[in-house]
């Protein structure tokens, strides 16, 4: 019964979202209708929320008469994964997508009080159009609440690789990011319809972009962390099509964050900011299509269905095509905005945008090139990590070299030489750090040492900026303290995010260059040397899990005879799907980690049982996750800045 109510609520939401479109666009001219449009947006959200709650209830109660539950759940699964199973499949995750899409629409309706009424109405109208497309797709082509005529006694269970805490929360965060950009998209289209993009518009767009980008950062980091410990070979980024699909909106979102600042503060780049606002959600939709259609092969291939892929491609084509056609028509009429000198903060932000956009184009081309080559000449090629390392990395390195100059250079007409003068100390610290690493670390790697210098340059560069703003080391302490506490949260947010990027670079360079790997078949009591560490296989025992059987190894790690830690890696066999996974054991040593995998069972020459134990020492690997965490916190801190609150008044 609950499931039927949910299915009905979903259909109702589709009809209401049609009303939202009509009332939204009509309400822009007739204020009387605008309120009804807002009501419809909230109604749509409530309908989808009810449908989603019904699906979660069906999963929690293992109602196998629902096709989606039968295909993706199992009674023996722990409750967390039963609930997470609601968004673990194609149908369920599209419903989550719709929930977030309509939720953001309702948020604009309820909290967007400071928006000019006509703009708000049109934003809701456009958001409603997106809602119609995705809800219609969910209701007619991918209904998660469809019943089965003959319910099976037991479900087919979720892929065991996906039964993991990080992955349970990865899709909701990822979608909050992906779909968060839909609001920015709607603001862009609404502004094009109104023919006005000004500082006030940019100010309303910025918090949405910040929120979406921050969520996307968490989502990507969780996914990467999952790959790091679940796939069992310690890699955290593979330049895989599915990863690229989530990375492209992130890069465009980062470009948009910056260009919107120029539009808000200086009134310049308005056309470009709108273009990015449309592009961010277009890339989100492209990602949804690439991941689900199966046009590209991927390690994370998920919920693949080619026929539905065509429908998703149509949705992408219709919405992005219409938006960009509108852009081509209306953008030339937008006010050109303020002028700026070659040496100015505007120019530096434009440079940031050029490099981020070129990087996005590179990722897009690298992802789609195998398809293009095959379509043109019929040849099949592969584009893998070596390509991205040679193209993407230098583009980003250039952007990072220029980054610390941005906050130190004045708007409109700045002085690059003066900025460079303020960064002298940061440059010296970075060079020293790079040289030290080059001298101390073995094996000696020039490129990675330069990468370390770059990471330190970013961190020292933002420190120099804070020092400059507070007149540290020049003014007396009380004044410095007064200036420190007077800095707006937005400034701290920016500093934290930029420093986070530096921290990430440090982790990425250390981990990829100086990781130590060691593997050996060990019988009980056998030893394995991993760099400075000694690993001993103490014990292997059979463990009975909730929905799996496992062999759990106990390994003691010592360094110079002193105990360090006792990792307990597992090999699990999931009986429902007859699949096995390896559960990696991690042991934290400062920012570094020891990573241990228990492999297959073998026999020694003497006929005793032995296990293949693989282990890695991953230096500074935790910085790879600390960096994105700092970026997210930076984004949220900026979001909490009074000037960027959602309900900010009309004054620009």
């Amino acid at each position, binding site marked *: 019964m609950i499931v039927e109510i949910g299915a009905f609520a979903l259909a109702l939401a589709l009809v209401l979202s049609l009303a939202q479109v009509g009332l939204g666009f009509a309400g822009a001219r007739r204020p009387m209708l605008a309120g009804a449009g807002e009501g419809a947006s909230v109604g749509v959200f409530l309908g989808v929320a009810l449908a989603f709650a019904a699906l979660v209830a069906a999963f929690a109660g293992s109602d196998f008469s629902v096709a989606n539950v039968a295909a993706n759940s199992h009674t023996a699964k722990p409750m967390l994964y039963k609930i997470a199973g609601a968004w673990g499949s194609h149908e369920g995750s599209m419903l989550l997508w719709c929930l977030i899409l309509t939720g953001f629409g309702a948020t604009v309706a309820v909290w967007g009080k400071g928006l000019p009424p006509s703009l708000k109405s049109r934003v809701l109208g456009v958001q409603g159009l997106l809602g119609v497309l995705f809800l219609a797709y969910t209701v007619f082509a991918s209904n998660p609440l469809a019943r089965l005529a003959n319910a099976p006694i037991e479900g087919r269970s979720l892929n065991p690789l996906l039964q993991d805490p990080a992955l349970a929360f990865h899709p909701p965060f990822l979608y909050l990011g992906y779909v968060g950009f839909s609001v920015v998209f709607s603001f862009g289209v609404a502004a094009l319809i109104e023919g006005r993009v000004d500082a006030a518009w940019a100010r309303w767009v910025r918090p949405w972009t910040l929120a979406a980008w921050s969520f996307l950062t968490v989502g990507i980091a969780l996914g990467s962390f999952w790959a790091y410990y679940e796939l*069992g*070979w310690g*890699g955290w980024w*593979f330049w*895989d*099509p599915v990863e690229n699909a989530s990375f492209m909106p992130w890069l465009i979102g980062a470009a948009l964050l910056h260009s919107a600042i120029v539009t808000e503060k200086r009134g310049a780049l308005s056309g470009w900011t709108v273009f990015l606002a449309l592009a961010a959600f277009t890339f989100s939709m492209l990602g949804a299509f690439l991941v689900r259609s199966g046009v*590209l*092969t*991927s*390690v994370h*291939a998920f919920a693949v269905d080619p026929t539905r892929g065509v429908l998703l491609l149509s949705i992408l084509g219709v919405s992005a095509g219409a938006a960009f056609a509108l852009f081509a028509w209306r953008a030339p009429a937008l006010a050109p905005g303020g*002028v700026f*000198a*070659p040496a100015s903060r505007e*120019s530096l932000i*434009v440079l940031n*945008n*050029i*490099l981020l*956009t*070129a*990087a996005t*184009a*590179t990722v897009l*081309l*690298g992802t789609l*090139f195998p398809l293009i*080559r095959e379509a043109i*000449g019929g*040849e*099949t*090629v*592969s*584009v*893998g*990590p*070596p*390509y991205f390392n*040679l*193209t*993407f990395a230098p583009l980003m390195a250039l952007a990072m070299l220029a980054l610390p100059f941005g906050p130190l250079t004045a708007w409109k007409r700045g002085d690059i030489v003066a900025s460079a003068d303020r960064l002298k100390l940061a440059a010296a610290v970075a060079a020293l750090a790079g040289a030290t690493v080059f001298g101390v670390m073995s094996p000696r790697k020039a490129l990675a040492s330069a990468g370390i210098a770059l990471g330190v340059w970013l961190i020292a560069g933002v420190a120099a900026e804070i020092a400059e703003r507070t007149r540290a080391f020049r003014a007396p302490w009380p004044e410095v303290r007064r200036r420190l506490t007077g800095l707006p949260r937005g400034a701290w947010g920016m500093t934290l995010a930029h420093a986070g990027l530096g921290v990430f670079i440090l982790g990425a360079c250390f981990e990829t260059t100086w990781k130590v*790997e060691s*593997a*050996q*078949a060990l019988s009980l009591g056998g030893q394995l040397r991993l760099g400075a560490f000694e690993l001993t296989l103490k014990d292997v025992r*059979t463990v009975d899990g909730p929905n799996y*059987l496992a*062999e759990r190894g106990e390994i003691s790690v010592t360094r110079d005879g002193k105990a360090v830690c006792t990792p307990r890696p597992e*090999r*699990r*066999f999931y*009986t429902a799907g*007859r699949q*096995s996974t*390896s559960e990696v054991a991690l042991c934290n040593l400062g920012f570094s980690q020891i990573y241990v995998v228990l*492999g*297959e*069972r073998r026999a020694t020459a003497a006929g005793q049982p032995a296990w*293949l134990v*693989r282990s890695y020492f991953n230096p500074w690997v935790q910085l790879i996750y600390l960096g994105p965490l700092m970026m997210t916190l930076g984004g949220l801190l900026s979001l909490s800045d009074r000037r960027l609150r959602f309900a900010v008044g009309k004054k620009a």
Partner: protein
Amino acid sequence: MTGRLFLLLAAIFSLAAASDPSERLADPAQEARARALFSQVRCLVCQNESIDDSTAELAGDLRKVVREQVAAGRSDTEVKTFLTARYGEFVLLKPRFSLGNAALWLVPFLAVLVGVGMLATRWRRREATLALTGDEESRLAALLDDEAP
């Protein structure tokens, strides 16, 4: 109990990637070279994995081929040429610099050039708006002359 044992045995099918000690070459320098090559070779039957990462049987066979070639003293280029002749360009994770791949390798840098070109145009337009026309110059000169004592 025997049922459980059977399940456990079923679980213990091969899971051995490139680091498997039974596959290794005796010479550490050669082994390091082979490992570096592995990360540039695609596992043909896998979902976008290199043979360094993959646990598939075919990946193991390819690793064996590469290790044999390295042990026989072939250069990296020779090994790659051999693999390409056998499996096509698809096997290389780093596409070659060839005419067919020209767009792939050039676009990232062309995109930057186009962007910088557009920025430069904007700067020039600024100079044009800031510079005075001949008419304005003469009016300014006249005004300044008037003010002169």
